[in-house]
């Protein structure tokens, strides 16, 4: 869907992550970029260079916030200080939506700083949806929840990951940030067909798509964001766009970061599929509901 209530009815095109090694080039050369995604936590501070640079970026570019440590799936309540600072930053950036991950990462006030996988249980569905609803109310902005790469599965799981995602977003009434690289990585690690995942997602809730590269090890795939997008991921992206339509797309590249033009060129490859994207979603999700 080109613009929907989950992405603030925007048409954002192809963006890239704003990263420190590119600050000087972006500010001096002012390349044409549809939008930048920032990691919210890097700018939730009270002063200094990060905020000053962000303000200069905001003078020229559209910025969307993506978070890494709200942890909607934590069994305990969200961190109020985090939410307060996040809200203050959204006022500064004017982001039309806020995204974070379908995961947990802290318990009893101790933080892992990782995107830890959830058991796909009804208890986790209820808890996660409740936290997203709470965050959405506090932030007064649409929230997109992103599927993560995972390397572990739980004995307790009662449904597939895509069933879990659909249940959470429906109960939370939030959007999806569909990361097709994460789907690929998890599918390889857990032996499922990634196309089944893409075909099962409710297209009407997808407000943004992530593409990225990953690393291949003998026994698993790792979401490293340090490579160009691989062909199997582009295939999933093509199918996602076919189902969802022209959707804000972002290339994630966080390690071994190449020169800005190289990174941006990699992101713009997405236009090959976006150019022929349908204007509206085409299919109802398949096998959307898990058995209760």
């Amino acid at each position: 869907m080109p613009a929907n209530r989950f992405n603030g009815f925007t048409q954002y095109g192809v963006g890239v992550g704003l990263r420190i090694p590119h600050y000087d080039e972006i500010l001096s050369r002012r390349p044409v970029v549809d939008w930048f995604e920032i990691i919210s936590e890097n700018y939730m501070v009270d002063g200094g260079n990060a905020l000053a640079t962000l303000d200069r970026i905001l003078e020229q570019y559209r910025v969307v916030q993506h978070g890494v440590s709200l942890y909607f799936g934590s069994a305990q309540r969200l961190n109020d200080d985090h939410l307060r600072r996040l809200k203050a930053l959204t006022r500064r950036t004017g982001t039309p939506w806020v995204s974070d991950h379908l995961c947990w990462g802290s318990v009893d006030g101790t933080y892992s700083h990782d995107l830890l996988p959830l058991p796909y249980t009804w208890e986790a569905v209820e808890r996660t949806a409740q936290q997203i609803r709470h965050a959405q109310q506090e932030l007064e902005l649409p929230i997109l929840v992103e599927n993560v790469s995972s390397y572990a599965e739980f004995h307790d799981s009662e449904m597939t990951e895509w069933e879990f995602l659909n249940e959470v977003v429906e109960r939370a009434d939030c959007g999806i940030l569909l990361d097709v690289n994460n789907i690929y990585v998890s599918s390889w690690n857990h032996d499922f067909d990634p196309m089944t995942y893409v075909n099962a997602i409710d297209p009407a809730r997808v407000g943004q798509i992530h593409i990225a590269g990953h690393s291949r090890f003998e026994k698993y795939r790792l979401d490293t964001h340090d490579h160009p997008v691989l062909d199997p991921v582009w295939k999933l992206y093509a199918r996602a766009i076919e189902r969802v339509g022209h959707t804000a797309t972002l290339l994630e590249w966080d390690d071994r970061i190449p020169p800005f033009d190289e990174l941006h060129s990699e992101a713009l490859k997405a236009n090959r599929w976006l150019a022929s994207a349908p204007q509206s979603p085409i299919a109802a999700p398949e096998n959307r509901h898990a058995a209760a």
Partner: protein
Amino acid sequence: MQLLELQRTMLAELRQPTAPEDNPTSAAYLRPGRRLNAHERLGIYHRSYWARLRQSLAEDFPALRAVVGRRRFAALLDAYLIDHPSHSWTLRDLGQHLPAWLEQHPEQAGRRWRAALDATRVEWAYVEAYDVAALPPIVADFHANSRFALQPHLRLLALSFSVDELLPAVHRDGRSQPLPRLRRERVWLAVHRADDLVYYRRLDPIAFTLLQLLGRGLPLGQAVPEACAAAPRGSSPQSTADAIHAALALATQIGWLCSPPEANPA
């Protein structure tokens, strides 16, 4: 297993220094996969947990590493992380307890403990000075009852070693240049931010003491005599008075003096 119990169990296992592959009781709640067993799957997260936290501290404390050496630094970080896992949503805060912790654990730094402690204090001051708030500076009207607050990003450190000379070297890209040799000397250091960059500035003991006292909320008329007591032995009254004037001029010029809290509407 309930969600909360599962999360407590999993995070506790990630925090163990022992790899899950070496602990037969770990990961009982995880399914084995076709290529990796449950321990190996948890091991991916375990390696990621330790690598991420070690890397964050290594980025924030390169001078500490230079002082104690790479091997001791690695062991020191692991011991610290066991005692002080992250309690913040941001990795920026991870090293906040390191200066106090190292003070309590001299055995972690070996014979260069004092220098290591100085390095750690300066590096944590850098982290804080980098992104805490800045208040509007005031053009002070100095009289005996004047009270001031200091810029929140200003940190005042009394050191025993010349670690401020080490910091620019360890922050420089490339390792081809030899690091400067640390000297044992009294250093009164201001770590502060100007134009969004962090600077180190040596102060004389009078300026250092005066700023400390003003930062504690003492009125100028009380802070000045106490700061004068910090003058080096044998200083003349005139040179001490000059030092006081110079300190106030410097603080005003750099913008370190702000309205005291009761005068700030916030």
